[in-house]
């Protein structure tokens, strides 16, 4: 004999086993199931037939679970969002089986403005470091007899090179961008990704170098202490 309540309880267990563990989606799905079963039974179908048809129509738990996971704010989703925001991709689109409608392309001016806003603090801090921190660090190195760290030398040489040959680098880059904006149909699709990765890499490198400098200043400074001598 078919027991509707038992079947619903079993279905609930299957959904839980498939990973739909948060109460809200499960409750909503169960309400849907009950309402649909009742509606079908009113039209003369047996409870068992109604239940089986509705369960089929709702879909399998393992198929629904990833969709709910994408829709909800799980820790993984938050991390992904945060990472994308750092990379200059604030509203990345989540594709679901039910919805592929919105375009994920943002207008060019927004990408350029965001990239500039993201890169500017890193440039500002790096220039500040070159002007105030590096001379002091060099002084500490000379007095304490410590070798100036190699990666910082390379970065300084590179930023010096960029400063001296600014137009040599900027003009071809600008020309390439104008050309891409003007001629390439595929560029808008990759623009945000390219700028996002570039801004992220630049910020990351600047942050690592500044941290290294600070750590090195503390280590080299320790050699100046009387007991170290």
């Amino acid at each position, binding site marked *: 004999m078919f027991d509707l309540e038992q079947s619903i309880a079993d279905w609930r267990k299957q959904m839980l086993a498939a990973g739909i563990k948060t109460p809200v989606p499960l*409750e909503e799905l169960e309400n*849907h199931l009950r309402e649909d079963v009742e509606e079908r039974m009113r039209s003369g179908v047996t409870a068992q037939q109604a239940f089986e048809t509705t369960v089929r129509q709702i879909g399998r738990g393992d198929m629904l679970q990833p969709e709910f996971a994408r829709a909800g704010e799980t820790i993984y989703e938050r991390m992904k969002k945060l990472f994308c925001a750092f990379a200059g991709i604030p509203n990345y689109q989540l594709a679901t089986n039910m919805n*592929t409608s919105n375009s994920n392309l943002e207008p060019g001016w927004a990408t350029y403005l965001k990239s500039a806003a993201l890169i500017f603090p890193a440039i500002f801090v790096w220039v500040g470091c070159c002007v105030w921190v590096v001379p002091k660090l060099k002084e500490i190195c000379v007095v304490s007899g410590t070798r100036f760290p190699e990666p910082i030398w390379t970065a300084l040489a590179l930023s010096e090179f960029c400063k001296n040959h600014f137009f040599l680098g900027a003009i071809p880059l600008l020309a390439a961008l104008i050309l891409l904006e003007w001629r390439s149909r595929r560029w808008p699709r990759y623009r945000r990704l390219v700028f996002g990765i570039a801004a992220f890499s630049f910020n990351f490198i600047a942050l690592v170098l500044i941290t290294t400098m600070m750590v090195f200043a503390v280590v080299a400074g320790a050699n100046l202490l009387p007991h170290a001598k």
Partner: protein
Amino acid sequence: MIRKELVAASAEPMILSLLAKGESYGYAIIQEVKARSDGKLNWTDGMLYPVLHRMEHRGLIKSRWTESETGRKRKYYSLKKDGKTAMAKHQEQWSLVHSVLAGLKKEQYV
């Protein structure tokens, strides 16, 4: 039957337009879509809820739990301001697609 890709693409504008008429809940939304399309727009029922949740996270719609006259709890969804804007955008785009197709079809029979 309507192609899966088209069903997927039309889900959000359809939900937004339905909710523009007034608040509704999952089961009623599905039933109305089925009725209006003569059963040709066949969603996998369960898939509606992740879409509703995602739209809620994006700030297009809001929800509230309420009890029906039969005592059953229902989660009602309604449109937010951003949802109205998104709906207008969707309708504009779909109208454009429709007018282009209708124009091309008309030319075929001239």
